């Protein structure tokens, strides 16, 4: 397996959805090729960090809740 093919299949390798032969080929390639292993390592970090964002809102600057509520009421007068 060459680098281009390996890089193309990294997400599926990560998801474990490839055929067994391809899984083994990529695993072997990543063990031998440090640049591709770096890409895979970073991808795993990105996915893990993304998963931690699911219920996290601490990284978000929220607009003013009351102001948005007033806008909402103005857009729909009957809410009052």
């Amino acid at each position, binding site marked *: 397996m060459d680098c281009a093919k390996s890089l193309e299949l990294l997400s599926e390798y990560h998801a474990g959805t490839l055929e067994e032969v391809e899984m083994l080929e990529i695993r072997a390639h990543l063990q031998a090729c440090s640049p591709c292993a770096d890409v895979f390592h*970073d991808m795993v970090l990105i996915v893990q*960090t993304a998963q931690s964002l699911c219920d996290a809102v601490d990284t978000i600057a929220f607009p003013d809740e009351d102001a948005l509520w007033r806008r909402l009421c103005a857009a729909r007068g009957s809410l009052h």
Partner: protein
Amino acid sequence: MKGSVVKEVHEQPTDLELARRAAAGDAAAFEEIYRRHFRRVYALCLRMLGNPAEAEDLTQEVFLNLYNKIGTFRGESAFSTWLHRLTVNQVLMHLRRKSTRSEQTTEEGETPVQIVQGTEDPSRMPIIDRIALEKAIAQLPPGYRTVFVLHDIEGYDHDEIARMMGTSSGTSKSQLHKARLKLRNLIRQQAQEATHN
């Protein structure tokens, strides 16, 4: 013997109770729903759109839509799940309306991803913090961003995403992969810029 302590327990109404009251015209109940869920709705809109002003407008649209549809909520799923799906659908509809294709995009409507292999820095990629990732997500092309947010953050599978977006599961997989690679490049760029500043 100590005097008995009478505890007053003020139980919060459930979302379902509030939804029923709101559907019956109780404006205070609807406001309570808004207060409970505004942050989650806004966060989802922001992540999917990458633009605070647009996310604010969409949040307003979601709650207006919710106001009109709240009577259809039957409590068969959790209210938060139902509202989440309502929000995702609203954002997807908005993205379709927007026709966001720019001149720089490829036939697939996305900018090509160049994979940067190797690192100048022996410590490899800088540790990704959530803020850096949020910033990079906002810079993704809309199609990549939508799939990445729905799959990697919100946990939808490719078949669900394909149904919601009117594409194929293969397209969803391909866009997710390109999104991850592009995010990697964006995060590396951020780190390089930070080192030079």
